[in-house]
């Protein structure tokens, strides 16, 4: 039997390359389709804002007082290897939680088209930066590099750090596709959970045995930082070439697990869709019944369940490892509540999807429907942030009355802020989305960036206010300051309810989310 390569083998490779080239071209087509659904001006503004902030974050810190000096700047330089590794971890968590990254165009809209998994992979890579956590970390990294090295040496380091951000995102994508593929195998979900548990136990044991700093010091990113901080040189060129090499290889290799994953059934989603749920007794009130159905829509959705775990456990463990004191815990509820709202709350009326028309034909006061929806969002956010705070307080010691009061007041204030904002935006800009897939988002990518920026800004400012109050030894002060915040959020929530009660407004929302 001849074993030499036949002409068919050659044509198969040619066919494969042609397919992959088409896949790359299709990214452009899908991007064009996606961009056409957003006003061109909005796209341009979004891109301009990104460029301006990125350039500012890269340049301005280098010219600040003490930049490149021996004090704070030097400490930042020492932390750079950990910061590069931290970005990798963040990109990984984001990509894994979203089942391989976000979809350029939702799956249900492309079901009739032959979309190559390579296109899907490249699309997910392109959308990865449209995430406030990614953007903030990227700007923080660039700003840190810039400040650490000062006006004479910042440019090569910032270029290197930016390329690292891209490479880390591409590497995260490979791992995320592989994890998603593993999750889709028999017993894969258990395997992924085991892997996660092993990772957590390892991190915890390193922290407990005080060996975490040794591990951080031994990270290979140290070699990269050494190569990037000495100005433009051969060493710098070699380091940059290596980072670019990692990026290119990761982008190309990422297509392999993407293809393998695409051939497997999403077991977790199928399990939810084919699962049986026993009948429960009739609830005692209309609102209780509405809450039950809304709760099912939230807790039976894969992206919500997965998102809740990542959102609540991640920051909780970081706080635990970092041994955050009580006066810094005020930052956590806002962070988690904002993330929770971004899972579904910002487009809350899309939960029933095409069932919205039937739901709207039922004889019930619209205000009861609104109350039930607000309650379900609130309880989701309470659960998520309670897990985080529960983990964080384990090593935070005994709080003073002022610290406890500040944390509890922040919690109440940011929860109301987020619920009120989510329901206002849900009413103003509804979208028809299918939240079945772990990769689905409740709104288009640019809108999500806008929402996350607004939520991050408002909750961070609130948290900082209460963090300051926790240092003042007078616990009623936090309660007094919280009162106007709560009143304002309640007022805005009531205004959102009035909007929902208005029949033409409600009809617009219902018709939109029903598709």
């Amino acid at each position, binding site marked *: 039997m001849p074993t030499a390569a036949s002409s068919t083998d050659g044509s198969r490779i040619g066919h494969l390359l042609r397919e992959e080239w088409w896949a790359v071209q299709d990214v452009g087509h899908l991007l064009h389709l996606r961009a056409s659904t957003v006003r061109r001006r909005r796209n341009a503004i979004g891109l301009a804002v990104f460029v301006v902030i990125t350039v500012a974050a890269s340049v301005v810190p280098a010219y600040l007082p003490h930049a490149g000096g021996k004090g704070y700047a030097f400490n930042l330089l020492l932390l750079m290897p950990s910061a590069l590794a931290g970005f990798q971890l963040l990109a990984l968590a984001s990509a894994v939680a979203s089942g391989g990254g976000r979809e350029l165009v939702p799956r249900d809209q492309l079901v009739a088209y032959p979309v190559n998994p390579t296109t899907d992979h490249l699309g997910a890579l392109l959308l990865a930066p449209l995430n406030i956590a990614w953007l903030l970390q990227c700007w923080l990294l660039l700003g840190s590099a810039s400040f650490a090295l000062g006006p004479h040496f910042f440019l090569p380091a910032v270029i290197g750090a930016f390329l690292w951000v891209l490479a880390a995102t591409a590497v995260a994508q490979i791992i995320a596709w592989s994890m998603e593929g593993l999750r889709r195998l028999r017993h894969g979900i258990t395997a992924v959970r085991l892997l996660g548990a092993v990772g957590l136990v390892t991190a915890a044991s390193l922290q407990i045995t005080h060996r975490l700093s040794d591990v951080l010091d031994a990270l290979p990113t140290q070699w990269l930082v050494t190569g990037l901080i000495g100005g433009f040189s051969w060493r710098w060129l070699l380091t940059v070439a290596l980072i670019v090499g990692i990026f290119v290889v990761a982008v190309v290799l990422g297509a392999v697990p993407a293809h393998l994953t695409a051939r497997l059934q999403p077991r977790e989603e199928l399990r939810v*869709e084919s*699962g049986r*749920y026993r009948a429960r007794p009739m609830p005692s009130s209309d609102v209780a*019944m509405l809450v039950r159905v809304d709760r099912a829509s939230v807790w039976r959705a894969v992206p919500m369940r997965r998102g809740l775990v990542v959102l609540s456990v991640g920051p909780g463990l970081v706080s635990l490892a970092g041994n955050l004191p009580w006066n810094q815990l005020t930052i956590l509820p806002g962070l988690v509540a904002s993330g929770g709202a971004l899972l579904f709350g910002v487009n809350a009326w899309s939960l029933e*999807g095409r*069932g919205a028309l*039937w739901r709207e*034909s039922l004889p019930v006061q619209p205000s009861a429907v609104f109350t039930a929806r607000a309650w379900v969002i609130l309880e989701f956010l309470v659960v998520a942030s309670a897990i985080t705070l529960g983990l964080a307080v384990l090593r935070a010691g005994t709080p003073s009355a002022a610290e406890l009061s500040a944390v509890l007041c922040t919690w109440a204030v940011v929860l109301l802020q987020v619920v009120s904002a989510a329901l206002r935006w849900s009413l103003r800009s509804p979208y028809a989305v299918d939240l079945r897939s772990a990769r689905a988002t409740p709104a288009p990518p640019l809108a999500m960036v806008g929402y996350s920026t607004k939520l991050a800004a408002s909750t961070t400012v609130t948290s900082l206010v209460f963090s300051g109050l926790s240092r003042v030894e007078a616990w009623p002060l936090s309660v007094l300051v919280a009162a106007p915040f709560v009143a304002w959020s309640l007022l805005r929530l009531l205004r959102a309810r009035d909007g929902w009660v208005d029949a033409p407004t409600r009809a617009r929302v219902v*018709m939109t989310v029903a598709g």
Partner: protein
Amino acid sequence: MSEQVPWPVVDVRGLHVRFGEVEAVNGVDLAAYAGHSTALLGRNGAGKSTTMRVIAGVVPPTQGTVSVVGHDVRTEPLEVKRAVGYCPDVGGLVPRATPWEHLQLSARLRRMGPGWEERARDLLERFELGDVAHRVTSGFSHGMGRRLSVVLAAFHEPHVLLLDEPFDGVDPIGVEATLDVVHDARARGACVLVSTHLRELAIEACSSVLVLRGGARVATVTAHDMAGEEGARAYRGLLD
């Protein structure tokens, strides 16, 4: 079922519905009576579904009056919704809720008595959905979803049964069960409105036919006049 009313159960006069620049319904008049079934026929975009949504109390009219069992949809939407059973044209199901949870929600909000469970089980069996009563609907086929939507519309034995594209993608058993539901509703004195593209099934299910074109009514004829080759030609003539 309460006593039959002597006036049109559904009375639509000069209905206009606008969505921004688009005039979805442009002056529809319609009168439908108890114990009768009326088909709404017309091409895509003729305004059938929007008219049904207005009658169901889901979309408020921009102009004109719509009364259902004597209640104005604009001022008494809850009374209208109590009187109506609505099967929407798209989906109509909450994706992550089970059929039983849909029925329980409807029974609760419609204040149905203790017999609702028996009625629910009976309907699910008739539409061959008994085996999937406790599975979430996102895993349902299109036809199963349509059948469940009809079940939900007919569940509380409404005064007005609104079925929008109930036969779309439904297998023959489902079609038969839907025709039975329409027949039963008529027999107990309910007013039935069926919107469909399928002329033959419209004729089988209904006694009169209302043809819409460009958001306005162009004709009201008996189902008999729409039957056969002659009826098909007449219908085509009304659409052009």
